């Protein structure tokens, strides 16, 4: 009764989940994630077999016995006990071998990840409550730039991520590409990722970091090298000059109100370092670290009432008139 029940439950479960590749460790798109998934399926196969064997033995053990025996049976059948002892010893030996194989496979896999790999790009990721600051490093100062919550990488090349956190422990996790790594205040950690094909890979903070831990997502966008180069060149340009009256008004509202105290837009006087850099905000896919999709409507809703969208977020509501709010929103959306 148990076997079929478990199977149909599993089937129903698989139906209900959509086996979607989104943020799934079982749909690897990077070499590390692929190696881990392989190791995982190997473990599942062996462990499932072990479980089935143990359940079979248990089932047989509780089946009704044909031979008569004393009740209670206090005189042991010594020969039989010894035989069973050998069988158990064999079972333990088999267990030890399986565990040794598991340990060895894990060790070898781990060792290959632990080796430093030559990387084409280094990106510093800083965790904050509750967003990701992303700094692209380079040898020359004028080749560095900052963005937030979205990390673009060239396909097929290892990229090193350097992690820091000034506040609490966060964890960077993009399951399609690699396992996770914690960002711990006072310590420096790192992770090398490599995407095998172009795509958008979602991730999420995986260490409870406070009240909006649930809304701290990030996206790794893997692009062909030419597209990546183009994106990077665009990021290096400062927040383009507004070219309409409304956009100029929006910029004016932004730099003269509270916005500039927390946010930076290069090429303007807004240089706040508390919240995300908004220089190319219009090209990002989401608002507030994956909380809502980036659209004009969502953006005005966010600016008008951040607490309503993401309760307890650090961004205060800034009182703006209706037209000012629309102008700022249009302006920010224009920052591609």
């Amino acid at each position, binding site marked *: 009764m*148990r076997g079929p029940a478990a199977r149909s439950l*599993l089937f129903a479960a698989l139906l209900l989940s959509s086996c979607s590749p989104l943020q*799934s460790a079982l749909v690897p798109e990077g070499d590390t994630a692929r190696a881990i998934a392989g190791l995982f399926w190997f473990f599942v196969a062996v462990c499932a077999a072990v479980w089935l064997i143990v359940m079979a033995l248990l089932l047989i053990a509780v089946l009704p016995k044909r031979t008569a025996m004393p009740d209670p049976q206090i005189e*042991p059948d010594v020969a039989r006990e010894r035989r069973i002892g050998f069988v*158990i010893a064999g079972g333990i030996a088999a*267990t030890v071998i399986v*565990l040794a194989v598991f340990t060895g*496979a894990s060790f070898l896999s781990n060792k290959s990840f632990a080796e430093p790999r030559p990387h084409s790009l280094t990106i510093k990721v800083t965790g904050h409550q509750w967003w990701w600051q992303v700094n692209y490093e380079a040898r020359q100062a004028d080749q560095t730039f900052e963005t937030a919550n979205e990390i673009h990488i060239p396909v097929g090349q290892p990229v090193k991520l350097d992690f820091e956190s000034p506040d609490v422990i966060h964890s960077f996790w993009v399951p399609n590409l690699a396992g996770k790594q914690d960002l711990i205040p006072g310590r420096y950690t790192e992770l090398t990722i490599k995407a095998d094909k172009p795509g958008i890979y979602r991730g999420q903070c*995986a260490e409870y970091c406070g009240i909006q831990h649930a809304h701290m997502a990030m996206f790794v966008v893997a692009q062909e090298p030419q597209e990546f180069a183009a994106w990077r060149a665009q990021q290096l340009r400062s927040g383009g000059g507004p070219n309409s009256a409304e956009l100029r008004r929006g910029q004016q509202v932004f730099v003269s109100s509270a916005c500039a105290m927390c946010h930076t837009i290069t090429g303007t006087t807004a240089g706040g370092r508390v919240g995300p850099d908004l220089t190319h905000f219009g090209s990002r896919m989401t608002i507030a670290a994956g909380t809502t999709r980036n659209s004009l409507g969502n953006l005005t809703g966010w600016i008008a009432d951040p607490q309503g969208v993401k309760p307890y977020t650090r961004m205060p509501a800034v009182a703006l008139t209706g037209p000012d709010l629309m102008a700022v929103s249009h302006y920010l959306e224009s920052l591609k």
Partner: protein
Amino acid sequence: MSAAPKVLRDTDIGDLELEDRLRALWRTPRGLMGWLSSVDHKEIGVRYIVTAFCFLALAGGSAVIMRLQLATPDAHVVGPDKYDQLFTMHGSTMMFLFAVPIMQAFAIYLVPLMVGTREIAFPRLNAFSYWMYLFGGVFLWFCFFSNNGPDVGWFSYTPLALTQYNVGHRADFWAQMITYTEVAGLAVAVQTIVTIFKLRAPGMSLDRIPIFVWGSLVTAFMVVFAMPAVMVASTMLILDRLVNTHFYDVSLGGDNLLFQHLFWFFGHPEVYIIFLPATGFVSAIIPTFARRPIFGQTAVVLSLIATAIMSFGLWVHHMFVTGLPRLGESFFTASSMAIAVPSGIQIFCWIATLWTGRPRFATPLLFVLGFIFNFVIGGLTGVMVASVPIDTQVHDTYFVVAHFHYVLIGGAVFPLVAAIYYWFPKVTGRMMSEALGRWNFWIAFIGFNVAFFPMHILGLEGMPRRVYTYSADMPWGGLNLLSTIGATIFFISFLLLAFNMARSSVRGTVAGNNPWDGESLEWATSSPPPPQNFTRIPVVTSGSPLWENRKTFPTVTGLRADRKEVLVSTLTEAEPDLREPSPDPSIWPLLAAIAIGITFLWSVYTPWAVIYGAVPITVTLVGWFWPKGTKEDES
């Protein structure tokens, strides 16, 4: 020639009169004062069990609310603040206020009976530990109901738990609750060890000690060596928060991983502190229903000891993604996998006992079978998470939540429910309903698996832990809904259990001394046992005393019948060695717990509380230990 005072020994009296005299000597006085000053291990054990069940209900209710919030994406059943308090309260209550105390409670009740003595080693300390536990738990839940519940997770990592990242005194309340419950837990561990070492019935040599008692002994040792670690961790946290020390402040030389190392050095043995007593239950129940003594007794005992020792060498597996040297972490993979071996030995021995016996089905055995089914799944996912590469994907996701619920519910709660059905007749004198028991089992089994199996998949599909909601864009809604349905069914099974217990305690069939025909000493006395446990202390000649001595039961004589006495024996061979008096009921343990409890609570607000509190604490402790000049004090 001086006349020695005339003493009355039980050699001089017949059985019936002796029974009456001992009852009068050992029973707790009636009335409120008597109840508050009881030092009877059976009464205190029952109080612990009832209190732990109340905390189970609160923690279980929290879980149901959490599951309702997660059943659908972007739900508004509770907001993030309440949710964060709920998951912290759920974890902290289950671990500190339910799981460990209830295992200790069964030890407090059963160990003196199983080793054939009248009372636990330090009865007043026993009473004290109950009051500390009660105060700590009530205090924590009072904080929650006044919207001051801790919201930092049951393991309260720094820096999130430091003053600047959370509100008010919530994290201090968590840390102080730890202090209360660890004091209580350590006190019980001390008594368990001394009772098992020194109060065993004559003839109960090491190889004749019941495996449940071995499990309790080994667990008590783990408590002694593991709990100080969490006390150091939580004390350092309170000090950082209250008086500005810098243990965890990286800007001034502190380190956040120090907290994690200290916490998990405790935290890993903690789960075995919960699990090993459960294996003790199983090793007591299977022989009774297989109709033969346990197979491989020595191997099982050595496995318990090996598990306990090894459990201290695994803790870094909770820290695999913190940036520690990856190759050093591999050592902990090896040790975390190796601990599966002694657990495996126990499982094989249990199966062998059933295989070579003639299993007789009743509710306790059903829950034991459910335990094996579920625990092996949990143990195998444990082997998976022990692998560093796999853990880098599943750590802090619902996969791990599934794993630990399979080992904790499958591995500890199922045996616990089996133990309730098994020993309820001994404690209350009545049998629980078998029919309701079967319903209880199947509803629990199905509900549990439907609730927790999908979580493995959710974790692999990217759902992290401790999220109060998730977006409809994510493919998690279906499995979350399924899990919530399962959780509700599982919760209902506990309502059924409670109903069965309540109804059976008034209307259950009267149980005799030994309704299951068990082999160990607790079944030699009446159900419920008299206050003195045994009118005459048994002499033990085998590991299955009630099966070996079917016709006549050997006993001891020569103990005094005019004062409370226990028989102290030697450590290994249990040869009778000394007659020591056992303390009378006393109100001082309660008063000391009140003094210490108020001091701990007050110290959340000011460090001076420790100084002020020292005065009443000293007074109550002196009152406790000052001899009362009663007969128990003579020698």
